């Protein structure tokens, strides 16, 4: 493990981190070990965000660094490593709503906490969720929405998953804007969360990670 790389990423020194990765590759370091370092750094970033010492911009920069490092490593890897992951989470902002900041934070935090996350983006129609459940086979679905209008499309999305006969194989959580148990009941979801850590905790409890 390269403590230097972990710290460079975790402390947001982008140029230094990328330079280190390139040097390590040229020095025949194991690309897998570099990826592990990057993961560890992401973990630190996630913790600092939870504690309130890092903010939204640091999460975004961390995500960008991880993407760039993966791009540098890709040619060196026969295939992208099967990092041991807890399970799969499908996520998206439901139809009629385009708010994505909360969803993006949840995606990041699930990712650094060891979940495979497929993010369908914003304004996602129920049918697209259904198709993605069939293809991606997630254990957990996260429906996001900030507008009150989104509560109805969350309900429609849950119903569409039910109608496709897929409801029993997934757990569904809802989040965004104002959430409480009344809203959860309206949507037919299994649980709701108020922040990104709540989403991580729900996913861990359900998947048994």
């Amino acid at each position: 493990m390269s403590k230097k790389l972990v710290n460079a990423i975790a402390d947001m020194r982008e140029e230094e981190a990328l330079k280190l990765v390139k040097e390590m590759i040229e020095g025949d370091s194991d690309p897998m070990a570099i990826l592990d370092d990057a993961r560890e750094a992401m973990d630190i970033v996630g913790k600092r965000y939870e504690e309130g010492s890092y903010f939204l911009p640091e999460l975004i920069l961390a995500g960008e660094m991880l993407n760039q490092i993966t791009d540098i490593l890709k040619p060196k890897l026969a295939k992208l490593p099967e990092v041991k992951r807890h399970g799969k989470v499908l996520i998206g902002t439901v139809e009629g709503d385009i708010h994505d900041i909360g969803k993006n934070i949840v995606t990041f935090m699930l990712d650094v906490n060891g979940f495979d996350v497929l993010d369908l983006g914003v304004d996602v129609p129920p049918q697209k969720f259904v198709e993605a459940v069939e293809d991606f086979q997630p254990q957990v679905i996260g429906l996001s929405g900030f507008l009150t209008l989104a509560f109805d499309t969350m309900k429609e999305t849950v119903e569409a998953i039910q109608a496709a006969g897929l409801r029993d194989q997934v757990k569904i959580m809802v989040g965004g804007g104002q959430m409480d148990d009344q809203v959860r009941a309206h949507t037919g979801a299994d649980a709701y969360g108020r922040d990104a850590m709540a989403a991580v905790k729900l996913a861990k409890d359900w998947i048994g990670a």
Partner: protein
Amino acid sequence: MEIIGEKINGTRKRVARAIAERDADFIRDLARNQAEAGAAWLDVNAGTHPKQEPDDLIWLVENVQAAADTPLCLDSANPQALAVAMEAVDKTPMINSISGEPERLEGILPLVTEHGCRVIALAMDATKIPETSAARVAVIHKVMEATRAADVPDECVYVDPLVMTIGTNVQSGRIFLDTLRAVREAYPTVRFTAGLSNISFGLPARSFINRAFLTLALGAGLDSAILDPTDRELRATLRAAELVLGRDNHCLNYTRAYRAGLFDELDKG
């Protein structure tokens, strides 16, 4: 500058509860406090789903009007809800909002023309907020074509260039300011408004960002903003910035605000 009081908004949890429980006192207090703090308009957003929205909006309108004389800014994308609320208002309201979305223009513009309202125009399409200033200006061209075709005078249109958080794009502030300046050049008599505090979402010490942004936006020509008028520090910044921009005859707004205690405990000399 006109302050549009932002607090009566059903997407805020406490307000949603007041609407659901028909807690009139809570809503009336919000209306009164914002009016006393100098709001020129009170935004009223039920935030409920379309079936419920007309009833909720009328209930809000009636209670806000019972507590304050301030004209309302009816905040909904739903033409049906706006049409019924329009029948319940005492004073000609502002409508919040239209956008480049054709259904919204078709549904809402007739109301604006019929009642001679002012209207907020968002620089976005149906589902997308353009990333660049040029693309936002292009949307506004489309909207202005529609408002002019509907005989809405330019000075009744409040363009919102859209404030996105700097936390996800460090250029958000500049994109806003560039859009404002470009639209102002093309339509010298339109007005501008903005939901100010979005700028600092996800960042620490937000009040400093909000104040810096308000000052710069005023300098670029912002005429109004949707904000919390009970935030004294923000209002103090507003008074000072308008003073510096030469928009305060004989400094009277500033000195009156001082005498009314706006700067008490805030001024460090």
